[in-house]
C-alpha cells in the first residue's frame, strides 16, 4: 500500500481499519540468492537497494532480535558529510544526496531535517584545521561555511562564548547536515525491501556459517539452516563474532557509546552543534527533548550500557558549551555497541571466501552513512565490484598501509 495524504484521508473515513502491517513476517525459505546477516539500518538498506537498483529480490535479512533494536535505534540521529579525506568525503556526500531524496524514494516519512551541523572552534589552530576541512569539502562539491564569532552568536546566543579556557571563536557550518528520525529509517527500508520481495526474518540468530570448497553454502540459525548463493555480513557491534564463524579475524574492537535525551523543552537549539574542545554534540528533537552524546566509554564492551564516569564527562562538556544545560534534567540514557575499527573508517569489501562480503567497522559514524552503505554494499554484492565512492574501504588496507585515519589517532580504536 502506498502512503499518501489520500490514503490517510480514506482510512480516516473508514475507521482506520484498512492499514496493513508495514512488512510481512515470513517463514525462512530453504535457499536465497543473498542472505544478509543483521537487520539494522545497513542490512535493511542493502536489501532495499539490492531489490530496487540491482534486480536481486530473492534476499533474506536475518535479524537476531527485532528490526531496529540495535544501533539504528540507538544513535543521536545526526547526518552530515563534513569529512576531510578523499577516501571518505565522496562516500558520505553520496549518502547525503541519498538522504535528500530518501523519503520520496521509499515512500515513508523519515523526518529528514536539514537544519545544519555546526562544529565550534576555540583556537586559531582549530580554525585553521576547520578551514582546511571546509576547503576539502568544497573541493569535493560539498557545502561548507566558516562562521566567525558574530555569526555563531546570531545562531546560538546562549553558548558560553567567553569561557575562560575554551572561548568560542567561530564554527564550521554544513547547512545541508541535520537530523533524521532513526527508527523511521529502519522501518522505511524494511517496508521498501519487503514490498519488493525481500524476506525480513526477525528473531533469527545466525549461529554458524557453513562452508564447502572455499565458498559459503549457507548459515545455521536458531530457525534452522538457510542456504545462500552469497552471504553478506552487516552486523556492526557484533562483526568480530559473526566473522569469527568464518574464521575471519577483523581489525575491530567493540566499544560502548552512550547517548542521552532530556525532558522536553521549548524550541531552543535549531541546528546540530558540536563542542570543539571536547567531544559533545547536541540537537533538539521535534518533541523538544535535547538529544546528545559524547565520547565512547573507552573499553571493550558488548553490554549496551555504559558507566557513570562517562555520563559525568559528557555532562561537563555540555555545560562548558551551553551553561543553561545545568538546569536541564536528563530523562533517559542508553548505550550502543560500536565496531571501532583501527583507523576510524569503515570496511565494505570482499573477504577471503569468494561469496562472503563484509560491511563493518562504522565506529560511531554508521547512522549518517546508512543509505550509501546500503547502496555501495548492494553494488559490491550484485556486481562483485566496489562502488566508486567506496573503493578505499578495503579490508586489506591495514596490512597494505593505506589507512583512512580521519582523526590521525593511529591503531588505537578507543581514541577514534
Amino acid at each position, binding site marked *: 500500500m502506498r502512503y499518501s495524504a489520500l490514503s490517510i484521508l480514506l482510512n480516516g473515513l473508514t475507521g482506520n481499519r484498512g492499514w496493513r502491517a508495514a512488512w510481512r513476517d515470513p517463514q525462512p525459505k530453504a535457499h536465497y540468492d543473498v542472505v544478509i546477516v543483521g537487520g539494522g539500518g545497513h542490512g535493511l538498506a542493502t536489501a532495499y537497494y539490492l531489490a530496487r537498483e540491482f534486480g536481486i529480490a530473492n534476499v533474506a535479512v536475518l535479524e537476531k532480535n527485532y528490526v531496529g533494536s540495535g544501533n539504528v535505534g540507538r544513535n543521536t540521529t545526526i547526518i552530515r558529510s563534513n569529512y576531510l579525506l578523499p577516501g571518505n568525503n565522496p562516500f558520505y556526500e553520496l549518502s547525503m544526496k541519498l538522504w535528500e531524496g530518501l523519503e520520496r524514494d521509499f515512500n515513508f516519512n523519515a523526518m529528514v531535517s536539514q537544519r545544519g551541523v555546526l562544529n565550534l572552534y576555540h583556537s586559531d589552530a582549530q580554525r585553521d584545521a576547520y578551514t582546511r576541512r571546509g576547503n576539502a569539502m568544497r573541493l569535493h562539491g560539498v557545502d561548507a561555511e566558516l562562521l566567525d564569532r558574530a555569526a555563531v552568536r546570531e545562531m546560538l546566543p546562549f553558548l558560553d562564548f567567553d569561557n575562560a579556557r575554551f572561548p568560542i571563536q567561530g564554527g564550521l557550518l554544513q547547512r545541508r547536515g541535520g537530523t533524521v528520525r532513526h527508527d523511521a529509517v529502519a522501518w522505511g527500508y524494511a517496508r521498501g525491501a519487503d514490498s519488493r520481495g525481500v524476506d525480513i526474518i526477525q528473531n533469527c540468530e545466525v549461529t554458524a556459517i557453513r562452508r564447502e570448497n572455499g565458498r559459503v553454502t549457507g548459515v545455521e540459525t536458531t530457525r534452522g539452516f538457510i542456504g545462500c548463493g552469497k552471504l553478506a555480513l552487516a552486523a556492526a557491534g557484533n562483526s568480530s563474532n559473526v566473522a569469527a564463524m568464518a574464521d575471519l579475524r*577483523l581489525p575491530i574492537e*567493540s566499544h560502548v557509546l552512550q547517548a542521552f535525551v532530556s525532558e522536553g523543552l521549548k524550541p531552543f537549539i535549531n541546528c546540530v552543534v558540536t563542542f570543539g574542545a571536547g567531544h559533545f554534540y547536541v540537537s533538539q528533537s521535534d518533541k523538544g527533548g535535547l538529544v546528545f552524546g559524547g565520547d565512547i566509554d573507552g573499553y*571493550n*564492551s558488548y*553490554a549496551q550500557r555504559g558507566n557513570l564516569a562517562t555520563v559525568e564527562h559528557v555532562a561537563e562538556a555540555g555545560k562548558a558549551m551551553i551553561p543553561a544545560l545545568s538546569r536541564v534534567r536528563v530523562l533517559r540514557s542508553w548505550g550502543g555497541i560500536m565496531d571501532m575499527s*583501527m583507523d576510524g573508517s569503515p570496511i565494505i569489501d570482499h573477504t577471503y571466501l569468494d561469496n562472503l562480503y563484509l560491511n563493518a567497522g562504522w565506529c560511531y559514524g554508521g547512522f549518517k552513512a546508512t543509505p550509501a552503505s546500503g547502496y555501495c554494499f548492494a553494488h559490491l554484492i550484485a556486481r562483485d565490484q566496489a562502488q566508486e565512492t567506496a573503493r578505499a574501504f578495503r579490508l586489506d588496507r*591495514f596490512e597494505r598501509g593505506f589507512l583512512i585515519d580521519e582523526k590521525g589517532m593511529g591503531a588505537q580504536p578507543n581514541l577514534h
Partner: protein
Amino acid sequence: MASLISCPHCGARPKEEFTIKGAVLSRPAADAGHQAWTDYVYLRDNPRGTHREYWHHTSGCRRWLVVTRDTVSHEVGFCQDAAAAKLAEVRP
C-alpha cells in the same frame, strides 16, 4: 562496572583513577615479519566475555596493571601488576 578496583599496590580504589589501554597482546620480535606485525598492530580477538587488558593506575601508583574483565557483564576479576604478569609468563 564495579566502582572500586583492587589495585595490587594501593588496595580498593575508585575506578575513575584508572585508564584502560586495551587488549594485552604479546609484542612480536622486531624481525618477526610483516604478517606477525600486522596481526599485532591491527587484528583483535575482540572477545564477547573474558578479556585481559592493560590498565594504568593514572591517579594512583601509576603502575601498569593487567586486569581481567568481562565485556558483557563488565565484571572486573583478577587484577595484577603488568610486570609481575610478564614474569609469570616467562617462567616455565
